[in-house]
């Protein structure tokens, strides 16, 4: 027994009577978990430093600073150009490490606060429930087990996990203060630590919501739901939920359910809240991702918008007021200056919203959010009359100054669109509509305050109506049984790799590139998984028969499958799957054994993340978190703006030495994986790089053959030639793909290739079994 609790309605003592007595005593007895405690339970910021230094010796930080100066204290601004130090002693390189740490901390805390809110909410409303992730998932919290040594069995167990994690975040944030850390690699080590904590925050958040709301528990056959700009029936009252924390939107759906309103009210979400809403209730719809927020706001589609947290336009209230949409802020993260109506009569709040007394309300009680949002939407919908918007007339204000073009990072020729719109031709704007990432920078620079986004949205109206697709509901964790089935072929290399499409939609070309990348790997029988906005964009394509990727490929964790794992916080299940391969398939100790498991993944598990449109600080910490586990990540060209990559040098053989765990000898294994985080300039480059990054030192010869066959074939297909580094990945002639034997043999000869042994690879000397 781990805890004791006692409740009594009434207790009589000689001196008094106590009513409603409840006593809870924390853990009073030892662990039920048989696995012995590993070497690093609840590691401090320095406990895994050796591992980080090993990684960063091979994968050195590459910085492209955004800014030559530092302005974080009153000694500044300090000029850090030309190797000058600032007043505190930091140079430009160390300052980059500091900024990276800050970014990762921002990302981690967003998930951390989210996780804590979900756990508190679950405990408050449902008590201390069991952590039950379903029959197929016995290793319920691999990241938490790995980092803390705690196996959570009750919801309240997460409080101890969160206490630890939040303490780490405090230590790490303090290191960014002036006059603290002064070494760039130590800053990066701390960023890796913060991001590892972030992985745990995400895991706690998703487990809490899966258990509390009964979301799918690793269901490969999760239902298909509607997604797209055209799925909303605008003849009905419309409620849109923006953000990432599903507590308030679940309450809205509960209210609709109780009152039988699903046929008469439309509810849809944007961003990860949307994904989680459909995990809870598959009659909800996904209106799209973050890029479309401003378009919905500008066109006034919603009668009511609820905002929870993360990645929501901060001017949502201002834009909503333009079209008379009511905004309900639902968490302490986003209050917009709205009156707090949490403890007021909801009917009074509803009346105030309906009569325009207030443009929105802060309501921190989810049940009240449900009532207010639905009642307001139902009553305001018949009264709302959108002003007719004359596209041609609005466009006629354009003076062709071109400032909007210079503001658009996607190089949309807005001036051209305006000119054509002035002539009544809307085809250009309609064509580029999906390419618009909805940043709204064009609006900010227009000297005539032209509502460019509205014009573009109206121009694309007909196209939008046809934007209807299907996405598989986020399935949650990968089942232990699936890991048992694919563990061996992944580690041996026979399944060529696991490719995870994650992150935001900040890219130039819309969803098509992402779809092409995913399809390439699906057709080659890689395991493809997806989360968040990337999972949404993968749905935004149909084949000639009108089928989306989710309809064409099964939802399991297996070769040739496409598994939508869930929202941003579900990313933890991808890291969790890699951890479970080490634990379940290879039977490595999991509990508080971070270094060994990360070493296993780096050397054996061919998993790669593609965050093609990574935008946020959360994406930075998610990527850095899996990097610490030895999983490389490719970001798109915009990802270069994170200003840091971890790059290997394949031209330096010494960097690729490992211990052979069998005898302790040092063996050069070739540059696999070549980089840990890498910004790719084109989709072709990303596809080829992803295939290459799946190569691991432990591949069997058969596995290496398969991986090299894909790498060579993709390289030839996209670049027209054989790769110039094949010789670095061929250890013995048995590694050479049979179909490529003649050519590769010739290349090996030209390069002076020599056969190498295939070790039992590890970076950790302590894992050497014998000398």
């Amino acid at each position, binding site marked *: 027994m781990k805890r004791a609790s006692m409740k009594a309605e009434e207790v009589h003592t000689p001196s008094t009577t106590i009513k409603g007595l409840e006593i809870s005593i924390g853990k009073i007895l030892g662990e039920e978990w048989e696995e012995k405690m590993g070497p690093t339970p609840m590691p401090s910021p320095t406990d895994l430093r050796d591992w980080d230094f090993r990684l960063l010796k091979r994968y050195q930080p590459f910085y*492209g600073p955004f800014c030559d100066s530092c302005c974080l204290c009153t000694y500044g601004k300090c000029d850090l150009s030309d190797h000058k130090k600032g007043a505190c002693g930091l140079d430009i390189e160390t300052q980059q490490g500091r900024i990276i740490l800050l970014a990762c901390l921002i990302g981690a805390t967003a998930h951390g606060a989210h996780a804590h809110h979900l756990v508190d909410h679950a405990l408050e409303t449902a008590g201390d429930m069991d952590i039950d992730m379903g029959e197929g998932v016995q290793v319920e919290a691999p990241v938490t087990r790995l980092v803390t040594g705690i196996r959570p069995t009750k919801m309240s167990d997460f409080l101890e996990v969160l206490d630890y994690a939040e303490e780490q975040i405090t230590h790490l944030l303090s290191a960014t203060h002036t006059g603290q850390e002064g070494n760039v690699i130590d800053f990066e080590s701390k960023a890796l630590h913060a991001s590892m904590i972030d992985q745990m925050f995400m895991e706690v958040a998703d487990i809490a919501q899966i258990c509390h709301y009964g979301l799918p528990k690793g269901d490969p056959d999760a239902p298909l739901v509607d997604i797209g700009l055209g799925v909303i029936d605008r003849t009905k009252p419309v409620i849109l939920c923006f953000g990432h924390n599903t507590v308030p939107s679940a309450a809205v759906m509960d209210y609709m359910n109780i009152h039988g309103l699903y046929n008469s009210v439309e509810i849809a979400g944007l961003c990860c809240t949307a994904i989680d809403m459909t995990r809870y209730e598959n009659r909800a719809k996904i209106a799209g991702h973050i890029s479309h927020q401003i378009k919905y706001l500008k066109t006034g589609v919603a009668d009511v918008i609820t905002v929870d947290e993360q990645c929501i336009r901060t001017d949502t209230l201002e834009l909503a007021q333009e079209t008379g949409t009511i905004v309900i802020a639902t968490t302490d993260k986003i209050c917009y200056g709205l009156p707090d109506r949490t403890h007021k009569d909801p009917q009074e709040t509803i009346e105030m919203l309906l009569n325009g007394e207030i443009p929105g309300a802060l309501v921190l009680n989810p049940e009240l959010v449900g009532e207010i949002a639905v009642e307001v939407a139902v009553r305001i919908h018949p009264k709302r009359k959108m002003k007719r918007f004359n596209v041609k007339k609005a466009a006629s204000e354009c003076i062709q100054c071109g400032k909007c073009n210079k503001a658009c*990072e996607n190089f949309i020729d807005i001036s051209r669109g305006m000119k054509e719109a002035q002539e009544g031709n809307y085809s250009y704007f309609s064509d580029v509509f999906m390419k618009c990432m909805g940043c709204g920078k064009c609006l900010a620079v227009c000297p005539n305050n032209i509502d460019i986004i509205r014009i573009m949205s109206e121009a694309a109206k007909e196209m939008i109506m046809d934007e209807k697709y299907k996405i598989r509901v986020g399935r949650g964790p990968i089942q232990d049984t699936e890991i048992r089935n694919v563990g061996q072929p992944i580690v041996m290399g026979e399944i060529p790799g696991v490719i995870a499409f994650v992150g935001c939609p900040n890219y130039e070309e819309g969803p098509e590139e992402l779809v092409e990348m995913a399809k390439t790997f699906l057709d080659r029988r890689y395991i493809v998984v997806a989360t968040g906005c990337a999972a949404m964009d993968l749905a935004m394509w149909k084949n000639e028969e009108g089928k989306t990727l989710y309809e064409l490929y099964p939802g399991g964790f297996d070769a040739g499958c496409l598994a939508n794992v869930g929202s941003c916080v579900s990313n933890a299940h991808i890291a969790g799957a890699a951890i479970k391969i080490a634990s379940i398939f290879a039977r490595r100790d999991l509990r508080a054994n971070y270094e060994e498991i990360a070493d296993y993944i780096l050397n054996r598990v061919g998993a790669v993340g593609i965050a093609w449109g990574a935008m946020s600080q959360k994406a930075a910490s998610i990527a850095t978190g899996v990097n610490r586990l030895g999983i490389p990540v490719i970001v798109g060209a915009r990802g270069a703006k994170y200003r840091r990559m971890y*790059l290997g*040098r394949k*031209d330096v053989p010494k960097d690729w030495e490992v211990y052979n765990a069998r005898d302790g000898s040092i063996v050069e294994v070739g540059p696999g994986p070549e980089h840990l985080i890498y*910004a790719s300039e084109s989709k072709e480059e990303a596809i080829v790089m992803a295939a290459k990054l799946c190569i691991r030192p432990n591949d069997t010869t058969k596995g290496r053959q398969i991986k090299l066959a894909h790498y060579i074939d993709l*390289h030839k297909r996209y670049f027209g*030639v054989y790769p110039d580094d094949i010789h670095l990945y061929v250890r013995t002639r048995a590694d050479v793909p049979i179909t490529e034997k003649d050519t590769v043999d010739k290349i090996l000869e030209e390069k002076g290739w020599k056969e190498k042994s295939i070790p039992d690879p590890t970076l950790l000397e302590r894992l050497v079994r014998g000398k």
Partner: protein
Amino acid sequence: MAKPYFPGNVPGIKTAMVVTPEQAAKIIKKAKRRIVVTGAQLREVDEAIKLADGALVVAPNTFPAFKEKGAEPVLMNKVNITNLLRDASKWNGLDGKGPYNLAIYMGSPYYYESQMLSCLKHFSTCKTISISRFYQPNATYSFDNLSEKKWEKALADLVKFMEE
């Protein structure tokens, strides 16, 4: 003073000197060892070939276009070549004959090129010149923001001055 094409892309203290095609040609000719580095969006294959003096690194997806023209460039991702140039004082170049002291950059998305150039600005001894269409403040030297037509002419002029 030139402004970055995206007005927000202001690096601060150290910004590129704007050069004309004639000045760019002089700088390039004067360089002891130069390398041309082109990106995934490059269309100006002929100009890149003409500007290279043996050392030409191209983004892999553009390689077939160079092959068609009979060129034999080195195929390498821009991140990788920039990472090698970052280590310019130690890296002996594609031919092993010594470090480059000038890198000519072109043909990448604006923001991506900007980050590559920023890396070299701060961490490399190799100077850079950007001859893309838009001003790149993180280069050592850069063309100004130019219209499509003016840029085409600037590139043609640069090649002409190089041949003189």
